[in-house]
Structure formats: structure tokens, C-alpha cells
């Protein structure tokens, strides 16, 4: 797992805007960084897409849902180069390919994907200016020109390997499926953590599941988690031992199905209730029926709703009415407090409800408890209890052979009959105790009732009801106060006369209510799960006892015990490992963030909780994670991605698209200075624009003395850089296509500035 992985080269042929063959040889970390410069829309993101397409048959980069012209252009671009396919005669085959050479440890892999189509008659659309635009069709996962037919529908995907002693590459198909081999080299689940594009970096902290997946997949914790689930299933014994044990086993199975939302055949069980979706045009997806999967569904939906609420907030911010803005700001502040109070109230409510249900019977039965304790004490004072002591006393007397009063208690059996009357009396006394052992439970009962309840009645009432009631009332009052405040502000916002604002408010209110409902549903399911878990534990104990009674079932019982032990060990290891890695990632992220961010003193702490919720607290203990500037968010993401590798030992190549575009001068300066010290031994490639990389740092009013040195020159002072430049042709036959060639950072005397230019 910890073998360093690096991309040696990539070769594109007729891929998207790259006509003909284009090859890039990447620097290893020992050789420095690879910098690929190009303007927006000229093909940087499509280099990332070329890697994704070759490895995973996906093209997720640079397809953002915004209206930036190069994004919409990219969305309508065929995977096969336009010039190439247009110039090709009809009924000829066309091939598009991407080939990547990757090194992992001492092995080198050659990974290639080839798409082959037959060109028939291409279809064009006439534009308003009279020009023609090639029509594109979505064919399975590939976008191809309309009028082409794919020959190899899933693309030829080949992985070849060359070991240290091998003279040449050899096909790996004999060893395993190429996709399986690729999963061992660079798993698809991790691709978003090494092929970083701007959109992903910007949205990183909006989706907490990214944090969880990052930590669990990179550290391979998900494998341990799957193993744990598998072993959990082994804890359910097979049937056939006896009627009662079969019944218990069935009960355990039913509870387990509930927990995992499975039907009797072990298939996932869903309801007919559709899940929430932000886009009404998306297809319906349904909730799991029960248990943990349903909680996961609900939690995911809630996160999506939170994101939508954040979007609404940012839409509010765009409303150009100062009063509305001020109101919205106040709303956000109170809403934050409201959400915190809501959580607090939920926890207090649950604790209080638990006490009311399980402790009230003590109060209801106070008279019964006092009466029964009195009866028990009376029997104890008479020496009736405990029974085991009375039996012991009789045994001792018979063993001693004489009473404390001196009477002879030796057995005198004549003709199978005891003739010593005193011995007979003691034996009768002893026999009368048979079946009365249950009475000894009354001794414990008395102690528990007296010790825990009667002697501390007032304290009992205060601790179980008085204090929780006060806490509950206070929290509920505060919750309602905040809710009313929010309602007041909402009315003011609605009265601001802005229709758009009103619609947004209505949607926001709807979502808040939905989130509230989801919280209640999750609480209910958690409670149910906890109760059913207790029930399952009871059944397991009963089953264990039953199995032990049956000699034939001893083996099975032994196996079950072992599976129990294995499960507990795995659970313990999983929890410890997860905790350890999470804390390592948390600490390293914080350390990296402080190094990279100029004004990090604004923040006090960074925390990743055990449920993977993230907190970046400022000096007033306010969580700013959802209110970071674009630059802060990007830096924190880089810090996190860097931190992921340190405790996990995973060393894969990092390719980052436009990392500095939205970062202010001071932070760009910091990144230029400290990035070379980051992630030692790991390959780093940056896809940059001249503006973010080669241009002088713009003046920053907060840091008037900040040097103007471009990021490229700052990097160059610390590490060797290998440059490439992507350039789109503006005229001639190759118009609209891009070329990639070696380049260098040079000073342009005409423009009086640095730029990346062809060698």
C-alpha cells in the first residue's frame, strides 16, 4: 500500500481538443514539480479528464454547472477530436486513445484506453451566424459526433506491466481483470483525492461525506468495516438444533434484518417513499426501509438540504437591498444559535424522557417498595433470611455432631432409619428450605431499594426529575425564544417587498422543517435500534444458554463464542484505528493550514469529530467551516489532502487544477514559499494559468510590504520546475485545437513581466 506511485508519462491521441499525438513526461518528486500552464478553456481540465478517461472511463472535470463559457463549451465537446473526425473520409474507422505510464514501487504499468468508431455521415447544426456546429450524441459513457458508430462499446482497456527483471511490458490479463489491477494501483474511489480540480476544491467542505470517504478509503478502513459487517453476519447461528433455539435464531435474524434493512432473502429493502432531491428532474430514489441504511439515507438528505440552505443564503447575499442584507445577517446569526439550542434540547429531552419512563415506577411504587422492604426486614430479623445461611447453619450443626446447647447431633441410623430425633428435626428443617432459594433475591432487593431509593428519596427525585425538568424547561424556553425571533425576522424579510426573497424564504422554511423532521426520524430509528439491540443481546444470551444445554450444540455454541470474540476484536481494532487516523489527520490538517494560511490566528482550533463533522472554530468559538472565503477553503482542503497521506502512508501522485485562482496575494505568497516542503517524496503537478502562476502578485492593502514575486519564481527558488504550455490555435487548419509543448518561465521584456512560454 505504501509504495510510492507516480505518473511517468501521458500520451493523448485525437482526444478532445488535442489533434494528433501529444506526450508529457512528468517530473518525479526528486526531479521537482511539473507545471502545465494554459489559459482558461484551452485544455487544462481536459488533461485531468484524459487521465480520468483512460483510468476510469469518466470525464468529470471542467463540466461545472455554471455558465462560464469554457465549461459549457467543454460539456458539448466530443471525446474524439473534431478536426480529426471531420477530415476523416466517411465509412473509415477513427481511433482516440490515451495512454498513461505509471510507476508503483519497482513496477511500471502501461495503461491504455482506445475508443474506435466508424464514421458515417456526420450531422451538423447551423448556427445563427451561418457557421456549422458538429452535433454530439451521448453514447453510453462517451460523447461522440452524431453520425459515428462505436465499434468497441466499452473502449479497449489494457493494463500491461513491466517488473524489475522484465525485458518488456507484458499483458496482465492472465493475472486478473485490468480493472482489478488498476484498483490495486490507483483505486477509483481515491481519484478525487489525487486529481484535484477547482470545483472539487471549492465545494470540499460543503460535503462532509468527502471527509469520511477520504479518511476511510485512503487508510483502507472501509475494508476493515466490510470485514466487521461480514463477521457480524457469522454471529447468527444456523438452525436445526432444536425448536426453541430455532425460534431464538429466527428472532435474532429478524432483528438483524431490521438493523441492516434487508428482506428475508438478504436483499436490500426499500420503501416507496421517495428521497428529497434538489433537482426535480433527477430520477426518484427511495429510502431504505429500516435501520442503519435508513439513517444514512436521511443523514445524506439532510446534508443536501443544508447545502441548499447555504445556497439560498448566498442568494440572499446577492439581493442588493441593504435592509434585507442586514436582516439576513441577523437571521444567520440567530439561526446558528437556534440550531445549537435545538441539538442541546434534543439531548436533554431524550435524557429526561428516559428518566420519566424508567424511573417514574419507583415513585409510583414508593408505598409498595416501602411495604415490601418492611416485610423483608421483618423476615430477616427473624433469621428467616438469607436461606442459604440457614441451610449452611444446619449443615454445620450436622457436621459438628453437636448443637451449641451441647445436644448430641450424631447420626444414629438403625435399619435405614435415623433414630436421633434431633438429627431428624434438623434434616426436616433443611428439607423445608428446598425451593425457597428464591427468597434470597429479596435480600438483594431490599438492599437495592433501600440504598438507591428509600434512603435517598429526595435526592432521587431531584436527580432524576427535578434537575432534568429545570434543564428541559430552560432549554425549551430558549429554543422557543430563538424560534420566535427567527419568525419575526422572516416576517420582516417577507415584508421587504422582494418577491425573489419571499420565494427563497419559503423554500428555506420548508427545508428547515424537513430537516427538523429528519432529525426526529433519525432519533426514532436510533432509539428503536438501541432497543432492538438490547433485545438481540438478550436473545443471544438465551440462545447461548440453550445451546450449552444441548451436547450436540456445544460445537456450534463454541463457534458462536469465537465469532463473538472475533467480532469484538475487530470492532475494537476498527474503532481504535479509526480514532487514531482521524486524530492524526485532524492534527496534521491544522498544522498544514497554519503554515499555509497567512492570517491563521483568526482561527483557534480545527476538529474532526468521530462522526466526521468538522469544526474550524474562530476566536469566539464560532464554527466557520461553512463560512470560509474561497481562498481559506482551498487552503484548508490542500492542508487536509496533504494530511491524509501522512498517517496513512499512501503516496500517490497529486495533480491540481487551478489551485491559486481564487487565493489572495498574501496566501499565494505563502503557498509559493511553503508548497515545496509539502508532501516530501510525492509527485506534484500543477495546472495553472499565467495570471495565477507567473504574474506579479497584486498589491494587498493588508500587507503593503508583501513582495510582488510571482508564485512560479517563489517555487523556483526552492525546487526544480519542469514546464509545459498548452496553447489553443486561433487560426489556420488547427484552429480551436490545443498543443502541449515543453516551456519555461521567462521574463517578457515587452510586457515587462514573467510568463510561461515555449522553449
Amino acid at each position, binding site marked *: 500500500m505504501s509504495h510510492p506511485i507516480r505518473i511517468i508519462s501521458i500520451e493523448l491521441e485525437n482526444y478532445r481538443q488535442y489533434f494528433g499525438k501529444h506526450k508529457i513526461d512528468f517530473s518525479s518528486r526528486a526531479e521537482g514539480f511539473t507545471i502545465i500552464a494554459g489559459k482558461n478553456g484551452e485544455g487544462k481540465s481536459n488533461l485531468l479528464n484524459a487521465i480520468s478517461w483512460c483510468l476510469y472511463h469518466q470525464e468529470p472535470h471542467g463540466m461545472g454547472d455554471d455558465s462560464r463559457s469554457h465549461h459549457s463549451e467543454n460539456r458539448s465537446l466530443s471525446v474524439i477530436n473534431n478536426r480529426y473526425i471531420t477530415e476523416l473520409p466517411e465509412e473509415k474507422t477513427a481511433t482516440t486513445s490515451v495512454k498513461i505510464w505509471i510507476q508503483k514501487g519497482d513496477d511500471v504499468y502501461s495503461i491504455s484506453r482506445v475508443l474506435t468508431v466508424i464514421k458515417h455521415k456526420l450531422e451538423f447544426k447551423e448556427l445563427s451566424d451561418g457557421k456549422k456546429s458538429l452535433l454530439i450524441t451521448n453514447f453510453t459513457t462517451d460523447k461522440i459526433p452524431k453520425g459515428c458508430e462505436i465499434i468497441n462499446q466499452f473502449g479497449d482497456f489494457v493494463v500491461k506491466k513491466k517488473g524489475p527483471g522484465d525485458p518488456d511490458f507484458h499483458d496482465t490479463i492472465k493475472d486478473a481483470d485490468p480493472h482489478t489491477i488498476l484498483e490495486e494501483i490507483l483505486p477509483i474511489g481515491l481519484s478525487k483525492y489525487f486529481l484535484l480540480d477547482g470545483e472539487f476544491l471549492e465545494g470540499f467542505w460543503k460535503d462532509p461525506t468527502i471527509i469520511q470517504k477520504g479518511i476511510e478509503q485512503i487508510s483502507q478502513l472501509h475494508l476493515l468495516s466490510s470485514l466487521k459487517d461480514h463477521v457480524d453476519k457469522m454471529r447468527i447461528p444456523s438452525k436445526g438444533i432444536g425448536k426453541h433455539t430455532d425460534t431464538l435464531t429466527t428472532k435474532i435474524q429478524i432483528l438483524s434484518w431490521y438493523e441492516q434493512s434487508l428482506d428475508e432473502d438478504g436483499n436490500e429493502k426499500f420503501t416507496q417513499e421517495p428521497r428529497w432531491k434538489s433537482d426535480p428532474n433527477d430520477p426518484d430514489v427511495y429510502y431504505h426501509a429500516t435501520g442503519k441504511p435508513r439513517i444514512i439515507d436521511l443523514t445524506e438528505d439532510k446534508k443536501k438540504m443544508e447545502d441548499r440552505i447555504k445556497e439560498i443564503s448566498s442568494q440572499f447575499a446577492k439581493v442588493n437591498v441593504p435592509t434585507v442584507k442586514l436582516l439576513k445577517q441577523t437571521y444567520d446569526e440567530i439561526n446558528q444559535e437556534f440550531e445549537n439550542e435545538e441539538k442541546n434540547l434534543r439531548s436533554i*429531552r431524550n435524557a*429526561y*424522557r428516559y428518566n*420519566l*419512563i*424508567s424511573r*417514574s*415506577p*419507583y*415513585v*409510583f*411504587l*414508593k*408505598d*409498595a*417498595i416501602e*411495604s*415490601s422492604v418492611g*416485610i*423483608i426486614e421483618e*423476615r430477616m430479623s427473624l433469621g428467616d433470611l438469607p436461606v442459604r445461611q440457614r441451610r449452611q447453619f444446619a449443615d454445620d450443626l450436622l457436621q459438628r455432631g453437636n448443637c451449641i446447647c451441647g445436644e448430641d447431633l450424631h447420626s444414629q441410623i438403625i435399619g435405614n432409619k435415623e433414630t436421633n430425633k434431633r438429627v431428624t428435626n434438623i434434616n426436616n428443617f433443611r428439607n423445608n428450605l428446598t*425451593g*425457597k*432459594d*428464591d*427468597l*434470597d*433475591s*429479596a435480600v438483594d*432487593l431490599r438492599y*437495592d*431499594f433501600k440504598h438507591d431509593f428509600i434512603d435517598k428519596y429526595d435526592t432521587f*427525585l431531584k436527580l432524576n*426529575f427535578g434537575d432534568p*425538568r429545570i434543564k*428541559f424547561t430552560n432549554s*425549551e424556553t430558549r429554543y422557543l425564544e430563538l424560534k420566535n425571533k427567527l419568525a419575526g425576522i422572516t416576517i420582516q424579510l417577507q415584508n421587504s417587498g422582494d418577491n425573489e426573497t419571499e420565494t427563497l424564504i419559503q423554500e428555506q422554511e420548508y427545508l428547515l422543517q424537513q430537516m427538523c423532521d429528519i432529525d*426526529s426520524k433519525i432519533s*426514532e430509528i436510533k*432509539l*428503536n435500534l438501541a*432497543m432492538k439491540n438490547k*433485545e438481540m443481546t*438478550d*436473545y443471544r444470551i*438465551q440462545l447461548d444458554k440453550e445451546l450449552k444445554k444441548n451436547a450436540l450444540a456445544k460445537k456450534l455454541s463454541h463457534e458462536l463464542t469465537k465469532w463473538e470474540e472475533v467480532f469484538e476484536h475487530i470492532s475494537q481494532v476498527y474503532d481504535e484505528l479509526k480514532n487514531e487516523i482521524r486524530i492524526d489527520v485532524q492534527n496534521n490538517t491544522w498544522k498544514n493550514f497554519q503554515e499555509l494560511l497567512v492570517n491563521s490566528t483568526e482561527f483557534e482550533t480545527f476538529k474532526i469529530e468521530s462522526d466526521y463533522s468538522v469544526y474550524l472554530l474562530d476566536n469566539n468559538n464560532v464554527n466557520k467551516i461553512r463560512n470560509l472565503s474561497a481562498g481559506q477553503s482551498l487552503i484548508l482542503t490542500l492542508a487536509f489532502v496533504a494530511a491524509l497521506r501522512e498517517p496513512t502512508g499512501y503516496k500517490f501522485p497529486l495533480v491540481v487544477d487551478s489551485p491559486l485562482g481564487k487565493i489572495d496575494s498574501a496566501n499565494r505568497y505563502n503557498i509559493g514559499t511553503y508548497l515545496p516542503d509539502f508532501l516530501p517524496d510525492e509527485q506534484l503537478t500543477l495546472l495553472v494559468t499565467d495570471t495565477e502562476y507567473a504574474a506579479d502578485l497584486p498589491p494587498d492593502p493588508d500587507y503593503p510590504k508583501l513582495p510582488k514575486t510571482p508564485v512560479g519564481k517563489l517555487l523556483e527558488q526552492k525546487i526544480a520546475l519542469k514546464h509545459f504550455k498548452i496553447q489553443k490555435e486561433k487560426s489556420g487548419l488547427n484552429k480551436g485545437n490545443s498543443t502541449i509543448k515543453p516551456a519555461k518561465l521567462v521574463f517578457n521584456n515587452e510586457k515587462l513581466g514573467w510568463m510561461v512560454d515555449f522553449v
Partner: protein
Amino acid sequence: MSDFDINFGPWINYGNADKENKITEKMEELSTMPWSPFNGCDYAQIFIFCMSYAFAVGRKPVSPPSKGSGSMPASAFKRDMRDFMKAIAIAQTKDLDVITNPNEVVKICEGFAYASFLEVYDKIKNRDTSISNEMILDSILQEIDSKRNPKKN
């Protein structure tokens, strides 16, 4: 664990044979509906609550109709619940030896629980909608406490 705990049951009757009063449906409602403070609880917890309430307000035990067996598994009754059941049986019979007869203990407890089940259900289901799940239980608790200590109020 004493024999008492093992021999307890195997099934406890809360009145599921009482079709006329729809006891089963009502029990299910109490344990699953959002308006019920017992939402998410086992039947056993509701049973114990009703049983204790009946004793506190002085209801006479009423044997639930029976169709041979009960419908709650004995395993649902945890140690503290069983202690409550023993206490109520001892207090009711004024005889400690009753706890050596699990069937008798269960019978007494079933009687108390059944005697107040509908009353507790009604208090919860037909309360003023402004009263929260917590406060309805709290008001029942206060009702008992004030009966016991009238001077407090």
C-alpha cells in the same frame, strides 16, 4: 441470577385478547406513534408504567382476558422491571413467599397493568395537543406525587 428470573414467564399477558378495547392496536400505537412518549419503547416498558400507575392510584387488579398465553416475551423484562414486579406482589399479598411463585407474581402484575392501561392510553392520546411528550409523563408523575404529599401543592 435466581431461578425466579429463569422461570419467569415465558409470556406475559397485557390484554392482547381484549379485542373489544383494541388493546393490541393501542399498545402498538403507544410504542410507535410520534405523539406517544413511549414511541420507540418495548411493550414491557409500557406494561411496567401502567402497572405502577395502577398501584399508585389504588386501582384494583383486573385479570386480562386470556387465550392461553400472553404475548410479551419474559426476556423483555429487565432486572429493575422484575424488581418492581416483586415489590408490587409482596406489597399486595403482604407475603414474601409470593416471590417463590413466579406465576402468581406475573398474575398480580398483569392485573394491575391491565387495570390502568386504557386510562394511561387515554391520558396520553387525548391530551391537549400543546402538552409535549415529556410534560404529559411529568404531569402523571406530579399527579401521583401530589396525591402522596398533598401539602406540597
